[in-house]
């Protein structure tokens, strides 16, 4: 992924939710990966930070505890504890040739599985990531062979798809590398992979998809989406 000009961006509201930490880990990962390569969204995030800074300047100061400054001065004298060395997980072999964005290279990938002929899925382990008790968040890489069409499906909740390689189309438009497709409950679509290349996407979804066709329903136990 290079810093190309994307056509499909997260909405301003979604970016603000991300900026304020209101999104789960999966959606945050997808947005960070997109933002890392999108000048427009970087500028928007920076604008949010400038607004935050201005609000800090305008805020009414609250009194700090009596010893606050003394405590702070003592803390800066202590040498920083060496950062706990967390071994970064190695990229599984099947991902090494895919030229993943930097942001994804040290994530923890679970074993990939075949969701359907021509489709493999590699879940990403982000720890506990939920919207609510009934709605876990699933985050994964999805790799689809050229020319395939996904069975039409609805969603239980938000679904974010960031194209890392290749492209696909659905009723809302054509998506290429760097573009972000966002779907919600009530929005049925049937993504069509472009003919000329494999399509690799980073996906984060709330809950499960709701297939509309028999084929889609039959594939559910394999797809595990």
């Amino acid at each position: 992924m290079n810093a190309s000009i994307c056509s499909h961006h997260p909405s301003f509201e979604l970016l603000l939710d991300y900026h304020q930490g209101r999104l789960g880990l999966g959606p945050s990962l997808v947005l960070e990966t997109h933002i890392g390569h999108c000048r427009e969204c970087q500028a928007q995030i920076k604008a949010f930070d400038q607004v935050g800074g201005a609000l800090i300047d305008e805020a009414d100061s609250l009194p700090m505890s009596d010893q606050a400054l003394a405590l702070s001065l003592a803390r800066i004298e202590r040498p920083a504890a060496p950062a706990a060395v967390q071994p970064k997980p190695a990229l599984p072999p099947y991902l090494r040739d895919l030229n993943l964005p930097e942001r994804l290279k040290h994530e923890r990938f679970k074993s990939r599985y075949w969701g359907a002929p021509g489709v493999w899925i590699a879940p990403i382990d982000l720890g506990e990531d939920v919207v609510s008790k009934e709605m876990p968040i699933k985050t994964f890489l999805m790799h689809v062979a050229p020319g395939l069409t996904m069975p039409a499906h609805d969603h239980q909740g938000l679904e974010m798809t960031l194209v890392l390689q290749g492209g696909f189309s659905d009723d809302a438009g054509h998506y290429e590398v760097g573009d972000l497709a966002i779907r919600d409950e009530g929005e049925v679509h049937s993504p069509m992979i472009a003919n000329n290349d494999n399509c690799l996407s980073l996906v984060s979804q709330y809950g499960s998809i709701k297939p509309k066709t028999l084929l889609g329903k039959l594939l559910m136990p394999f797809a595990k989406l």
Partner: protein
Amino acid sequence: MTFDQNPQMRFAVGMTNTPDSPSHEAAAHSQAIREASSEHLIHVIAQQRDRHAYAVLFERFSGRLKAFAMGRGLDEQAAEDLVQDTMLLVWRKAESFDPQKAQASTWIYTIIRNLRIDMARKAARAKPLPDDLWMDNVVVASDDQMIFEQRATGINEELKRLPKEQVEVVRLSFFEDLTQTQIASALNLPLGTVKSRLRLAMVRLRGFIDKKAGF
């Protein structure tokens, strides 16, 4: 009483060699630091590890950062902890602050914003953000002669010029951590009205920022 009226504190931040009354030069220097821009203070912290500059910066920001933290729903102790962690990072990462890229308050806001999110995630036992993700590792060229004008983009004034109802929505969203639905409920307004006020405010602020940057 500000910290530099306390002889022990003056000694602690290196304003005097002995805990007695300061020399004339030291008094003049201390005046200069007290009146310096925040951007200059961070520069001095980065270049000289100047504790006096740090103390002034701490006094300038800590109370406002505490207001931000408590607006976020943290109790008083947790808010003070967050402020302490934030200012500690300001001290440690001062070298990475680039006044060409942002005002001091923008940079400090970014630090506290990310720390607060990390704090909430640790509390939920989720993975925090990788440390190097949000820290620009830009080293400012050392130049003792450099004088920093208040590099205000003027956004503070622009924020004040917004219609009151737009500022209110911006403040509730950024400072009070309310979603748009919650803001609508709190202000007894339709959700659409909240959305459009927030959008109008941000479009205007963003237009102002872009114009200043020469786009």
